[in-house]
């Protein structure tokens, strides 16, 4: 069947199209050329409507152990957000930690067609994929987490060469069915197991004598040399610690020009000035990002209200546990592989610190010049649930709304920010870059994030309301792989997205040392660790999409 979308205003940054009126044709899930005979089976009049490709959330905690702990832990949070079963949709619930089904439906209803789980512990990857398998409509994928795993640290302590590390990274990405690689508090989760309570960029893990700087360099180099499109995804040292902007600046310098993605940068942009010994480092961080073209960031904006923080960084989560609201929390050491910490949290607009966090996030958005290198996230659910994205978009696009909000916050915090003087307003084109084209490019999704011929027909069509929150809450149409899944903001069809992965080559000899390591120290066999393609396909609803590597990858 050939569908024609007639006369929409197309925002397709990948092709430099900024508000270009043109028709789009869809057949068999793809965007195609206009038919030579002009015949179409279905025509949808979208004149005056805003057309973008489906949005991509490149950092959202939607699956895996810590998310499921958060769900189990917070019955009171779900009870206020129960979702009824309909003819089409399963029942579910959730505000801060929604059920998987609800997650998929809500993303689609907001015009999102892909979401990526950024913290897939290799040993827990099977579970992350099970949960993503039960997340409808959107495409998904994960970043495998290394950096505190004992196997890597043993390799580094033994000073093994970069090629060996590349092999291990490639093996891990392949057998955890991952799209990218993440590091969380590099080496710090491991150091916490040895009772270290903080780990600065150049501080050594007491057992391995390895520093976070070295871990970042090794892993970032591995990604470059393997040709994996998504650069190393970094949750840096000292999350949430006042003064951590200096660590972040050092981290940017320390990577020596290699591509690196710094995630939820807001939580890593704090100074120590002022009466509260807590200040914004956003200007310095933004300047460093603007200067260093190898760096990309997502913001991890906080928004006010109840949420839950779920992180692999149990060292920092343990430190933050006294702030738990409600007062309950979990920290875990996990399988000589990683860890996790789940701490519910309520961001309050009359708290100086929380108000300033809100401001720091927005300052970062407004002071980083290049929308291709900054991404719209709340680090769902850590800064706020993903359902608040339309509100966040309005804050970025509407200065008077932003300043009205600002004027209601903690007065001392207002005095500590220049936010009110920042005039920038994001354009629709900017939003299309940071939530579509830029995200697809950053992740190496070859056929997503754009509206050119050959692209997957993931398309979102909006009415151009002046109220951007309303506009982005409720698209007129969402197409997923060419099928209409949302009409007038409501779900009309449930489909199942694919799982995006990379499969870098590795030298099979790595399995010899891995097998011996698993046999000696683990409680699981190497063969049982590996996640087969069949497990992703599962009951037939799942599928794998292997994304191409950059040319020139070694091995």
């Amino acid at each position: 069947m050939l569908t024609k979308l007639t006369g929409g205003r197309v925002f397709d940054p990948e092709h430099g199209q900024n508000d270009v009126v043109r028709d789009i044709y869809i057949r068999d899930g793809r965007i195609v050329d206009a038919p030579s005979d002009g015949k179409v089976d279905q025509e949808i009049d979208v004149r005056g409507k805003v057309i973008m490709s489906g949005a991509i959330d490149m950092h959202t905690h939607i699956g895996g152990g810590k998310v499921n702990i958060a769900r189990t832990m917070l019955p009171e949070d779900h009870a206020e957000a129960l979702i009824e079963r309909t003819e089409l949709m399963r029942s579910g619930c959730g505000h801060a930690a929604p059920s998987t089904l609800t997650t998929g439906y809500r993303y689609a209803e907001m015009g999102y067609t892909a979401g990526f789980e950024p913290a897939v512990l290799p040993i827990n990857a099977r579970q992350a994929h099970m949960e993503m398998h039960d997340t409808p409509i959107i495409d998904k994928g994960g970043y495998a987490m290394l950096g505190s795993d004992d196997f890597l640290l043993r390799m580094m302590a033994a000073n093994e060469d970069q090629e060996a590390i590349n092999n291990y990274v490639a093996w891990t990405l392949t057998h955890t069915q991952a799209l990218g690689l993440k590091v969380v508090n590099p080496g710090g989760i491991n150091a916490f197991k040895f009772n270290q309570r903080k780990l600065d960029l150049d501080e050594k893990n007491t057992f391995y004598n390895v520093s976070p700087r070295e871990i970042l360099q090794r892993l970032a180099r591995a990604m470059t040399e393997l040709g994996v499109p998504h650069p190393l995804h970094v949750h840096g040292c000292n999350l949430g610690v006042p003064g951590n902007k200096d660590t972040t600046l050092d981290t940017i310098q320390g990577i020596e020009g290699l591509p690196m993605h710094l995630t939820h940068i807001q939580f890593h942009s704090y100074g120590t000035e002022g009466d509260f010994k807590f200040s914004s480092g956003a200007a310095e961080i933004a300047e460093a990002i603007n200067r260093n073209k190898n760096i990309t960031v997502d913001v991890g904006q906080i928004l006010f209200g109840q949420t839950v923080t779920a992180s692999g960084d149990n060292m920092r989560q343990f430190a933050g546990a006294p702030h738990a609201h409600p007062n309950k929390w979990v920290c875990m050491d996990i399988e000589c592989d990683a860890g996790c910490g789940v701490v519910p949290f309520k961001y309050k607009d009359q708290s100086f610190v929380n108000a300033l966090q809100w401001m720091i996030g927005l300052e970062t958005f407004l002071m980083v010049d290049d929308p291709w290198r900054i991404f719209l996230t709340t680090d769902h659910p850590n800064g706020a649930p993903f359902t608040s994205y339309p509100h966040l978009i309005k804050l970025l696009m509407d200065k008077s709304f932003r300043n009205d909000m600002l004027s209601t916050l903690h007065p001392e915090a207002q005095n500590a920010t220049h936010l009110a003087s920042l005039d920038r307003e994001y354009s629709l084109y900017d939003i299309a870059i940071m939530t579509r084209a830029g995200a697809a490019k950053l992740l190496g999704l070859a056929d997503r994030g754009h509206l050119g011929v050959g692209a997957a027909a993931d398309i979102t069509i909006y009415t151009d309301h002046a109220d951007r929150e309303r506009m982005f809450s409720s698209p007129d149409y969402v197409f997923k792989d060419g099928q209409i899944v949302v009409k007038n903001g409501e779900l009309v069809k449930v489909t199942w997205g694919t799982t995006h992965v990379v499969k870098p080559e590795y030298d099979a000899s790595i399995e010899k040392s891995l097998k011996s390591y698993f046999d000696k120290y683990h409680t699981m066999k190497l063969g049982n660790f590996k996640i087969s393609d069949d497990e992703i396909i599962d009951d037939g609803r799942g599928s794998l999409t292997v994304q191409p590597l950059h040319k020139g990858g070694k091995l």
Partner: protein
Amino acid sequence: MTDKQSDGIFYDVVSPFCGIASDDLVVQVDGNTVTVKENGDSVTTPGFETPITDLSPRINGQEVSLEQAVKHIAGLLNNSKQPLIGGMGTDLNGARAAMALADHSRATVDSQFSDAAFRNILVLQDTGYMTTTLTEVRNRVDFLLVVGTDIELTFPRFFERMVWPKESMFGQDIDSREVVFLGKKPSGNASTSPSGRAAQVIECSEADLPEVISVLRALVKGKNVQAESVGGIPVSELAVIADKLNQAKYGVISWSGTQLSHAHAEVTIQNICEMIKEINNTTRCNGLLLGGKEGDTTVNAVSAWQSGYPMRTAFSRNVPDYDPYLNRGQRMLDDGEVDLLIWVSSFNTAGTPPKTDATTVVLGRSGMTFEQEPEVFIPVGVPGIDHAGRTFRCDSVVSVPLKKLRDSGLPSTFDVLTAVEQAL
């Protein structure tokens, strides 16, 4: 990977019958006969070796086709005012199908292991905890305190695999690891160190455990305790344990929710968990929750990600409603609230449904016998023997693949429940 050799031998087989899910079993398969050749134990070996007896579904004791049985169950569900899906002894996809069916038919879900599992879940939902996983224990534990639990009775290979491995990753002298049982004495000597050093046992009655733990927590915090003994244990002896917990580099405190069965044991567990948090202000210490056999951890995990809640969730209002007391399956049966019980127990022939006046449907392991023949019985395959699957271990982090070992023709729980849902 479960590599089948030409002689019917499978290696690296995972056991779903025990919560530690050992995955190093060697199993021989000859037709429908399964024999554990290596690394079996008193829990796992019978799990694999229980023979197949029934292959046909029955309605009121009469053999019927699977299609007839499925249609009959769908009819019962369509007419039921309050169905309960109980037992829940199944794997990942069985749990998925049960949740989908519950949502569709407005049933309530509960597991046969919930009384034990909720002793921990209630703590998670009230104050949380700090825990660790099996491989961490294997490599790091230097002091293991076992509370009120005879571990080897239900986890026969726990000590061999987690406490007394040949070597640790961090050069620890394995034999120097110290094990103390508080409350219950172990039934065997699995906890004895490789050099023959027996574990220390400090016995008390289970009824005294809440008080003993309270005093231990006070001592760990450095409080003065006036009493000289508690539950028959000299306070000075507990002070030594408190000191060891504070001195250990990586202490682990372990218990089984099944074996801590005193009234409101969750409060005792909560006290242990809060004590662990306090110890972590200076050194490292973690809880290790033992349990999780036969899909226990799996069904709570699947329920949590699909509905937001663990077991004991009702769909009667078309939304998930969670209540750990009202939705306790046995309570609902006892109070006559259930008119249809669908009981799933695919791992264990002993996991039979409770006696009830409610119409009963059983998806059970072949060989299950009943005091009272259920209205419908469907012998289903065992995940990890008759069909592939996945199951979670007790630490709820690691899940393992279960492989198909034989071609019995028995349907999976997923197949049956999905067919029922489609027939509604």
